[in-house]
Structures are given as structure tokens and as C-alpha cells.
């Protein structure tokens, strides 16, 4: 199921593959170690602190601030039809960071370091198989695409 994540996926399998299922259902999840409480995003099954493999998903609000960004003009193979796109790195309110494209509510030239943003789950509408990702949007933007709609 992890292969659902991204328009182009390089990772079909992972211990945290349910992340993609949660994302399809509109939930952005990090992980928390059940043994020592270490919490992180991106998710990981194995605790880097205490080495425990006992973890649980915890929901993230998607609220965060822009850490840095770049507008990609020269695309790698597989992303030719997407350019230009802006990759934004967001520091999440609950800790950890993610990298994603700026979405429809956040034009490339409005992205600024330290601005408050909202990470929103997304489903690609134009692919035959299930493909999910998330975008960086203006604060207040909500997830509105329930599965199958």
C-alpha cells in the first residue's frame, strides 16, 4: 500500500505502509514509540532512540510554518508534466518536517519562509490506480475530498 504515496512511487513496501491508507482517508499521521514516547514525522516503525519496534500512528494537525522552499523548473524523469512546481519544507506544529508541493491556494510566488501554512491530504484524480499525497496550502484550508467522491 505504501506505493499509493506520490504520483511516482519508489517505495512499494514499508512497515509504516498504513500511512498511505490514513492519508487517503484524510488523516496526516506521524508515529510515536510505545516504549519511550519518541514521536516523529516522517513516520518510522523503529525507534531511533530506544530501538523498540512497537509504535503507533498519531494524527497531526497539518499546521506548520515554511522552513524553506524552491521552485523546480528542470524536472527529473517522471515529473516533466508537473513543472514548474514549488517544493516547500514545512516545520510541523507537533514536531518533525515534511516536503510537499505548494497547492492551489498557495501560488508559488507567495511562498515565504516562516509563513503559517496548512498541510492538506490530496488524492490524484487523473490516475487509474489510487495515488495520494499532500500539499501545502494557506492556513484555514481543509481536506474535502472523501474517498470515492
Amino acid at each position, binding site marked *: 500500500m505504501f506505493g499509493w504515496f506520490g504520483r511516482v512511487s*519508489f517505495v512499494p513496501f514499508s512497515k509504516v505502509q498504513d500511512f498511505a491508507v490514513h492519508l487517503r482517508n484524510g488523516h496526516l499521521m506521524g508515529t510515536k514509540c510505545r516504549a519511550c514516547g519518541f514521536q516523529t514525522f516522517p513516520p518510522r516503525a523503529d525507534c531511533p532512540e530506544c530501538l523498540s519496534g512497537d509504535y503507533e500512528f498519531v494524527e497531526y494537525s497539518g499546521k506548520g510554518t515554511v522552513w524553506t522552499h524552491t521552485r523546480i523548473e528542470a524536472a527529473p524523469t517522471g515529473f516533466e508534466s508537473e*513543472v514548474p512546481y514549488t517544493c516547500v519544507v514545512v516545520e510541523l506544529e507537533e514536531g518533525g*518536517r515534511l516536503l510537499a508541493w505548494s497547492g492551489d491556494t498557495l501560488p508559488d510566488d507567495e511562498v515565504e519562509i516562516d509563513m503559517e501554512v496548512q498541510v492538506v491530504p490530496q488524492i490524484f484524480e487523473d490516475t487509474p490506480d489510487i495515488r495520494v499525497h499532500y500539499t501545502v496550502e494557506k492556513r484555514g484550508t481543509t481536506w474535502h475530498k472523501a474517498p470515492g467522491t
Partner: protein
Amino acid sequence: MSRVGVVGIGHGRFGRRSDATVQELAFEAFRDAMEDSGLDRKNLDASVIAAVPEYHKQRSIAGVVQEYLNLNPLPTWLTEVACASGSAAIRTAWMAIQSGLHDVVAVVGCQKMTELETADILALMGRVGEVQWESVFGTTFPGYYALFATRHMHDFGTSHDHLLQVAVKNHHYGAQNPNALFQKEITIEKARASDPVASPFCVYDCCANADGAACVILAKEDKAREIAGDRVVWLDGVGCASASMSVLRRPDLTGLPSASEAAAQAYAQAGVGPDEIKVAEVHDCFTIAELMAYEDLGFCEKGQGGLYIEERRPYVGGGGVAVNVDGGLKAKGHPIGATGVSMAYEICRQLRGDCGERQVPGADIGLTHNVGGIGQYCFVHVFKNR
């Protein structure tokens, strides 16, 4: 501990070498180094080959190089840490000599990149980032360094012109290097007008993929003196450190923590400080990378990299450390497996006083700073001429 010395150096022409295979490129550099050292193949104990395998159609590249150099049945192995593979090969040769296992080791860095299309190279290099959480968003190698540049500009007021001044300098020196891919000066106006790649970068912020090879021959102290006499260049500091694969898990994006750590190790081991370095080869895969290197290596204060280039301090006679006065990756080209060895070649030439017009006066201590990926790996090597 006894010392390890460089007793022979060789370099082929970097460029779009559609005239040669990777082993033929390796041979050019190896022959040059053997002639430089005056050694015969029977004096060698082993070879270390540096290359990044995925760019080659040929698998297991050490084997084909070793055969073409006619070095069978000597031991050989490959080192791979992305763009720092060359320095990793030098480090393992240093280790093999210091362990007492081998006395004289040839290090050959070689790479053929132009068999692939640029978009495919962008895709391969983008996957030097973390593929599970980052590459799915079409990250590219220039894109990663652009994330650093955006943050450095925000935090320290560094301008895009500061970055392009690095490119202007490196093309200035590339124009004096017959082994360089680009042997033409550029103006900042021309650099500014080049096509956008990943903001704030345009084409002239980026080094070029190239084919090429370089070779250095290392020997233990007594052998080195015997072979090369006064011409030995000593490798006295070998620093190496790593940092997270994922850009998301870095402490900050205005420097490379692996570079500052590797530098601290190398300075301590060689017993020198950054103020004693006369000439440096740093990893300018993108303009911001050279600017961050000034800071990570202690040539200037954190955040002052822009001012350092603006004041022309990294030029020969500029009053700072002369940096990349062979053109750097920017103008020389970046055959990724060869680059670290090419850096060592250039520092040895500088410390021997053989660089002609671009010779740094009084160059007695130099260093190489070779970065793999976006700083997942960094090797800093300190060289002395006595």
C-alpha cells in the same frame, strides 16, 4: 604514527568524452600518475577505484578498470559515497597503508556520465535524497541545494549575485586549466541571464556533468621519501563525517554539519587551523555549496560567505584562502567518481609549486573538501608539502 605521502599524480581531460570508455579514461590518469611518480606497476601493492556505479552500463567497474590498467592480480576494490567517492578511495588507501597491509596504493577516480540523458541524471541524482518521503515530490539535486540557498539568503542576507560571483571566479580559473570542461570566462550578466533551474538557481549556479578520471599514488612514509624525495606531498589529516540522508532531519539548512565535523577532525589530526590553509579545493557542485564551505571550513564566520566572495578573498592573492583556483566542479566539470581525486591532484600541484599562472604564492598547506550527496557524507583532507 608514520605519515602517508602522495608520490604520483595524474589527470585526464574532463568533458563530454564520447571518444572513450570509462576504463580508457582511467588509463589516461593512471599513465600520467605512473609517469609522474617514475614507478613501475610492479611497485604497486593494490588499487582503490572510485566510481558511482549506476551511471555506467558496465557493472562492477573496479574489475574492468583493474584489467585495463594491467594490475591483475593485485587487490582492488570500489568505494562509493556518491560525489565523495574519490575521497573515500583516498581515505581507504590511507587506512590500508597505515594498517601496514600495503605500502604503495594507486587510487583511481573515474566516471562516465554522459551515456545517460540529462533528465535521467536529474532523476538519479534527485534520488540521492530520501526516496520514501522526498523524491515522490520530484526533488532534484539542484533543488536540494536550492533549499539551502533559500534559507541562507533569508537568514544572512546572501544575494543571488553573491552566489553567481562564485561561478564567475571558478570560470575565471577554469579558463586557465587545460583539463577543464569549460575554459572560458563568464560575466555576471551572462550568468544572471541563464535559464532558471530551481529557484534561486539558474544554469550558471550548477556544475556540469562530465566524463573524466584522476589518479593519485599513495605510499607509506619511508617509501614515499625514497620514491619522490622533496616532491612528496603529505596527507596529514583525514576527516570524515556523515549527516542524515533526509533534508528534513537536518538541524539547519545554512551549512553541512558533516563538513564542519570532518574539518574539525582533519585540522586536529594535521595540527593546523583554518588560518594556516593557503589553498583549498571545495565541493562547489552548486554555487551555494562553495559559499557554505567557506563557513563550514572556518575560512570566514558563519553567515559571512557572501561577503567573503564579494571581497574577492578566495581569489589568488585575495587575502583569504585561494579556493578552487583550478575551476572547481563548476568549470572543470564533475565526473562524480573522479572529483575527489581530482581535488587531491590539484592541491598536490599547488603544494609542489607547479601551477604556473594560477599558483598560490607560498602554498605549503592545502585542503580538499569533498561532499557526497547533500552532505550525507563529507571528507576533508589536509595536505602539507613538508
